[in-house]
């Protein structure tokens, strides 16, 4: 096959610049590969939409736990902005109180792996997603390498260095003598595989934008689910314990600073 496609490549690399490619290769190899890849992408997109399950349900308790960690860390970072010591102590008690404190409560330790073992639907989801990626890809790869291997089918219109040989001339054995700018069919397949994302976003839109808030919420919850809450609880609790409560740290010289700012504002025209 390689011989048929590289007509005129009988002599050495000196001649390789004048290599002519059969126009039939363009119509029967180059275009079909690209077209097939594109169509498979479209089908996969729609299939994954059909397979997608709705947003996972999130328990209110889980929301409360992850939000509590967030709120506690904000208290730790910005506590200096609270003007009254009592306000700070009250909040710290809310989190750290020995009996009632939010961060003292037991959490179901759900690291992602344990969660996956307990929730088969999650595993199934992931399998589905992976399968819908892997199966079409390996099928197209087999198809291309079976029917179209060994074609030299395009030429890059610019000079390239030798390093590109591995990338552009996969699957043909005359490598040493052929100019690097020629592209083999297998390489064309790979280029299509990685390069079509832009085309897909143009034609199919960015993900499914229609339920994106649900998606966002889900991601937020997952961010919460991903962290080890029990550890986070202990850490935030200890951090809060270390803070020395004082009255209005930020506010000691507030009036002087206000006066300074006002003076500056008055000076400005």
């Amino acid at each position, binding site marked *: 096959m390689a011989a048929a496609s590289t007509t005129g490549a009988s002599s050495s690399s000196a001649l390789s610049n004048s290599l002519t490619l059969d126009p039939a290769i363009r119509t029967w190899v180059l275009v079909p590969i690209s077209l097939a890849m594109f169509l498979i992408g479209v089908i996969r997109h729609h299939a994954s939409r059909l397979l997608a399950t709705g947003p996972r349900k999130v*328990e209110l308790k*889980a*929301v409360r736990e992850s939000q509590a960690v967030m709120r506690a860390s904000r208290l730790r970072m910005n506590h200096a*902005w609270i003007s009254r010591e009592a306000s700070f102590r009250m909040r710290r008690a809310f989190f750290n109180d020995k009996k009632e404190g939010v961060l003292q409560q037991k959490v179901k330790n759900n690291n992602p792996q344990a969660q996956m073992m307990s929730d088969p639907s999650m595993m199934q989801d992931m399998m589905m997603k992976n399968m819908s990626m892997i199966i079409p890809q390996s099928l197209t790869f087999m198809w291309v390498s079976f029917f179209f291997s060994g074609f030299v089918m395009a030429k890059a219109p610019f000079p390239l260095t030798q390093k590109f040989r591995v990338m552009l001339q996969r699957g043909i054995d005359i490598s040493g003598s052929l100019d690097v700018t020629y592209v083999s069919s297998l390489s064309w397949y790979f280029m299509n595989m990685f390069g079509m994302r832009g085309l897909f976003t143009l034609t199919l839109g960015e993900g499914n934008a229609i339920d994106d808030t649900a998606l966002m919420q889900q991601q937020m919850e997952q961010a919460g689910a991903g962290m080890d809450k029990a550890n986070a609880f202990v850490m935030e609790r200890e951090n809060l314990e270390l803070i020395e409560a004082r009255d209005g740290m930020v506010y000691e010289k507030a009036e002087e600073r206000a006066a300074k700012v*006002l003076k500056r504002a*008055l000076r400005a025209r």
Partner: protein
Amino acid sequence: MATSLSLTEVAALKAEISSAKKTSMNSVRRLLTLMRETQRKDAQLVSTHGDAFLKSSAIKPVPDEERFLIYEQVAIAACECGDVEVADRCVSRLESRFPGSIRAGRLRGMVEEASGDIDGARATYAKLLQEHPSSQMVLKRMVAIERTAGDLQSAIKALNHFLNHYMADADGWAELADLYLEAGMHKQAAFCLEELILIQPHTFCHHLRLGETLLSYATNLEEKIVAYKHLCTACELCAGAHPRVLWSLLACVSSMASKKAGASSSGRGGATAAMEEIDVNVARLASKQLKKLYAKADPDLAATAQAAVLDMLGDIPDCLDD
């Protein structure tokens, strides 16, 4: 920069659309997109022109994603300005396209709210919550619905339920502060405002509102000083550019001064003497700055403002700019 640019474009498009007899559908589409991006609102405009756009043939080439976003946008706008019929039509389309979607379900509830069917909306939301107990959108609607019904206590209860779980939600705390202020529960409002400051410590509005709230229920000098510090911080954070901050600051100083006489007679003079100097200084600067702001923005009002300042600070003549 990008946002200010698109804001000017929004204004230009609005003017074009409301002035022209026959509006071009392309500019309507552009306006709707920009309004979604910048989160500007103009319910009436979006409702009428968005509905016309959805009915026209110009909707055909719009891709699915954008089309349904427009449906949602128009539905919400129509609910806001009471075009129940338009909203109903949009939501029906969304429901038939996304059966069982919580986002469409919430819109249905909002349509019911807009048509005055509060109980129906409540039932709709309750049903949604049964399926998705942690839906932030629906939980917030539950608060809004009680507020619409005018039941302040229920609204506060619903919002507390929301914040008990979504306790890092800034908008929730801001709304709760509003509700408490409306109900006259200033201490609770102050707590919410403190929570807001923890979330966004560099936003001057939060300091301003906390200062005002604290001042309004302060009974002794200590409490007033806390309010004063927050107002000073607000003034610092907004670089003295907002008249409301300055007015509040002056009101606070004047209130402190009227208490000061009482406080020093009861023997707390040491602490206040140190404060006095600075109070006078800040108040004088603030009144000067107010004068400048008014002279610049509205010279006609300047005299009235000056009189008000005089009235406020009459007791403490040192503060007045001579």
